[in-house]
């Protein structure tokens, strides 16, 4: 049986200063583990190496939904001075405004690596697959190729890309069973199954924990072997 935690605070309590970690923060609250991010802020671990998969928070037109309220994005970790290094595909929060990350990057407080989105996804998948590296055609002839080994395969140029793994991964799923199997809702799946596989300790926050057998074997997206800790979002939790 997986460890079911009763609080987010307890689930993140052993994250040390200097840890590397991942969470999804693509577009809006869908798929974003807001409660774990919030608990990590409260814990205060510093010098973190963060993969926000793939940025620290943009929501754009999602704000058109009536009753939209700002959700907890990993940029609160930047604002709180907990981030030392960040790996993003997009640095601006909302067009026209500087994000917390941009301010921190310009002042030299945070070191930033820019990664094309598809490369980001495939580096996570490589990290979750145990491969050493892979050759990718993306970014040849652009700034992205700087410092990368280039190789011609079947007459086409490729760049060597390394896998991404992290010490801790926060996953936002819809349901978990007590064996740690996960299913996701809609497009909030996105980076979450990749994160679950690419971390040494995977912590999932879910809408509901169900009994073993309630999730059909064929509908499970993330097998429980990748999931270490589960917290059910309580009534009034961030969703």
């Amino acid at each position: 049986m997986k460890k079911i935690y009763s609080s987010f605070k307890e689930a993140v309590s052993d994250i040390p200063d200097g840890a590397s970690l991942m969470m999804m923060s693509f577009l809006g609250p869908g798929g974003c583990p807001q409660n774990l991010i919030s608990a990590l802020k409260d814990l205060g671990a510093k010098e973190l190496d963060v993969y926000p998969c793939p940025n620290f928070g943009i929501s754009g037109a999602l704000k058109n939904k009536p009753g939209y309220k700002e959700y907890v994005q990993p940029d609160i970790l930047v604002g709180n001075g907990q981030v030392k290094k960040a790996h993003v595909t997009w640095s601006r929060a909302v067009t026209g405004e500087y994000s917390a990350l941009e301010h921190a990057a310009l002042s030299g407080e945070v070191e930033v690596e820019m990664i094309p989105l598809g490369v980001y996804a495939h580096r996570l998948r490589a990290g979750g697959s145990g491969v050493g590296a892979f050759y990718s055609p993306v970014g040849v002839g652009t700034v992205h190729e700087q410092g990368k080994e280039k190789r011609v395969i079947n007459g086409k140029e490729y760049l060597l890309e390394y896998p991404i793994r992290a010490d801790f991964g926060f996953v936002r799923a819809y349901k978990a069973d007590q064996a740690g199997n996960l299913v996701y809702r809609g497009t909030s799946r996105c980076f979450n199954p990749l994160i679950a596989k690419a971390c040494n300790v995977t912590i999932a926050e879910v809408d509901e924990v169900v009994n073993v057998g309630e999730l059909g074997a064929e509908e499970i997206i993330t097998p429980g072997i990748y999931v270490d800790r589960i917290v059910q979002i309580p009534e009034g939790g961030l969703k």
Partner: protein
Amino acid sequence: MKERLSEEAIAMRVAKELNDGEYVNLGFGIGSMVPNFIAEEKTIIFHSENGALGYGRVLTLDEAEQMDYNFINAGAQYLSPKPGMSIFDIAEAFDAIRVGRVSTTVLGALQVSEKGDLANWSADPNAPIGNIGGAMDMPIGAGRVIVGMTHTTKENKFKIVKKCSLPLTAPECVNIIVTDVAVIEVSDDGLVLREFLPGWTIEEIQKITEPRMIISPDIKEMELI
């Protein structure tokens, strides 16, 4: 100033370029408006790089009660689910692009060169950070890259240039440029002016285009429908 097409009208002209049965990925801005203008007789299967294929209509403000954070596209628009729609993770979404299954991608641009080089991720040549997103990945595998953009900058500077001065997104990838005054094809011999906005002369369009264009023998007025 002479009259030019609105962004919606550029999206309309891009929509006309898409073929029945195509798998199409749409970028931000003008690209995201394209689904509103697909002719009824055509079925276009839209692909979104956050992990959705065959999604339904983009919800409007009148349909706010259906909006769900868990059903969105990569342009941060709320989607309506549709029978036959599939959902997958983001690595899978980019696989479909890399192996060439997504036949067309529609992107915005800051500059396009006469060779079809695309610059669209940073307006500042010296910026250490910027907004790349999926823009570098898309042109690599997609069969056809359509750029929808204004012909010139707000300051009336060239956007269609001999050589891009802004950081490149991908070299030699653009096939068709749809602007607010013209439709231009990128060919091995250079840029070919295929269509012009009524009210504009070829000379006037050439004047706001840095490279010398080849005039298509079949040149015609732009039609939106």
